[in-house]
């Protein structure tokens, strides 16, 4: 394993220190409690958004803390959900009295740790609403699984619900639009290589030179099946078939599309992929209102990509367009 790190055990803490040093004006990083908060939090009367999950998905979530998006993020160890103490500390630190929304990706560990934290927060009199993100349609049979994973749609939920909170939305409203965005979203991912966690020191799986993993999540876990590598245009078509079957989009509906790299895929390829996505969606009469292309919800250095399609209302587009000022996503500010 070759990485720009010191001791593998210190990666998360040291990266957090670097994030703090890199954004002294915008972020406040509590290194001992291990959370990242907006420098101006808590803001009285504003609903706060807290998210978190394993590290290794950067810029998610720490890179999405700031005006118009998250109030705090709790990074766990690499690919390991944060612990309740951390989540509770972050929740208390950013609560402005109007309640806190927890944005939780649907993984057993995240769900349980956030649930424990929410119970503790409730004990301290903080109103918490949880928005569960489960957009990954590669997970097919929910009676045989822990349910669909939360992946790319997390960015959309955090951006759109974050904008609603920023403009003064109430706790129930912020949570409601977050849930609507999740319901309207579907994602599908491919991996060409596995990522390497600093602690394990070797790739999560080995793939022959001509095979890919189909339907992977963002934790280096293998996918549903292996297939031979195919041209990008075929992979895009298969992924969009799965996405549009799970969450149908009607003629004339508007969508936001996220073409997301899993960390080791060059932007050159992601733009090529977006070109294929645009072609297929145009064929099907889907109107792409907004799109984002880049490495946003990553899996360390995995070469791979995910597609997310979210059917959006005009209201969601308005909130998507609202100013955002975070290390990982910024416009209008």
């Amino acid at each position: 394993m070759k990485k720009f790190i010191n001791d593998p055990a210190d990666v998360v803490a040291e990266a957090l220190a670097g994030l703090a040093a890199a954004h002294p004006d915008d972020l406040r990083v509590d290194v001992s409690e291990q959370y990242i908060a907006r420098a101006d939090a808590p803001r009285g009367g504003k609903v706060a958004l807290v998210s978190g999950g394993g590290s290794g998905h950067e810029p998610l979530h720490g890179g999405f803390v700031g005006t118009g998006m998250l109030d705090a993020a709790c990074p766990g160890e690499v690919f390991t959900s944060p612990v309740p103490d951390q989540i509770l500390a972050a929740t208390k630190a950013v609560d402005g009295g109007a309640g806190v929304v927890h944005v939780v990706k649907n993984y057993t560990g995240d769900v349980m740790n956030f649930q424990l934290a929410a119970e503790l927060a409730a004990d301290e009199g903080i109103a918490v609403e949880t928005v569960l993100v489960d957009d990954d349609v590669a997970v097919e049979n929910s009676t045989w699984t822990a349910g669909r994973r939360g992946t790319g749609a997390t960015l959309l939920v955090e951006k759109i619900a974050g904008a609603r909170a920023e403009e003064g939305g109430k706790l129930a409203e912020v949570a409601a639009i977050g849930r609507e965005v999740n319901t309207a979203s579907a994602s599908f991912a491919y991996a060409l290589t596995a990522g390497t966690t600093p602690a394990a020191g070797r790739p999560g799986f080995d793939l022959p030179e001509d095979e890919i993993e189909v339907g992977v999540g963002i934790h280096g876990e293998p996918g549903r099946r292996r297939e031979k590598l195919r041209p990008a245009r075929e992979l895009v078509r298969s992924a969009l078939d799965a996405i549009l079957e799970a969450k149908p989009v009607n003629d004339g509906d508007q969508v936001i599309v996220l073409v997301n790299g899993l960390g080791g895929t060059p932007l050159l390829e992601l733009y090529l992929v977006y070109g294929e996505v645009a072609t297929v969606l145009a064929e099907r009469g889907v109107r792409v209102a907004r799109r984002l292309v880049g490495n946003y919800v990553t899996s360390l250095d995995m070469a791979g990509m995910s597609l997310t399609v979210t059917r959006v209302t005009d209201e969601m587009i308005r909130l998507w367009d609202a100013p955002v000022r975070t290390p990982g996503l910024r416009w209008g500010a």
Partner: protein
Amino acid sequence: MDVALALAWLRASAGAVAAESDRLTRLDSAIGDGDHGVNMNRGFAAVVAALDATPPDAVGALFVKAGGTLISKVGGASGPLYGSALRALGKALPPGPEVELAALAGGLEAGLEAVRKLGGAEPGDKTIVDAYRPALDAFEEAVAGGADLAGAAAAAARAADEGARATTAMQARKGRASYLGERSIGHQDPGATSTALIFKALADVTA
């Protein structure tokens, strides 16, 4: 079981988890995200450190503290599950520096109940439960048959290990491994494996 034995058990568990950390992580790489060994190791090392710092003087309090430490330090699925199990075990025990065998059996039952409640796993789902359930059955059967703690723990350890091995043939229905569908078959479950290590540690310290 007295405080010293409870402490010895957790210490032995920490040692076993450290020694087998790579294997647990490898198992988790095959059907999960490759962190189970690291998670367990971090958690049990913290448990030992916390208990060493301020050793509780009651068995129940000791397990409650150990469970709370796991919850605070591990994260992931295993942190809340093992942490809640130990907390429930501790809370179910009567107060005092020593507990009877029957009380311990009841506490272990409460621990399993906590895992089931939090994670919703049934036997056969390829989880911790698949080692914990048969271990506890064997423990209770041995106790009912008149065995002492050493005998019951030995029976439980054997059953836990068999249970863990039996997960190889199962298709996962809970946790990350479930996303693999049929591809989860053919690999032993990391969590069931660490559960077997913990029951073996109990057998070792009572033998």
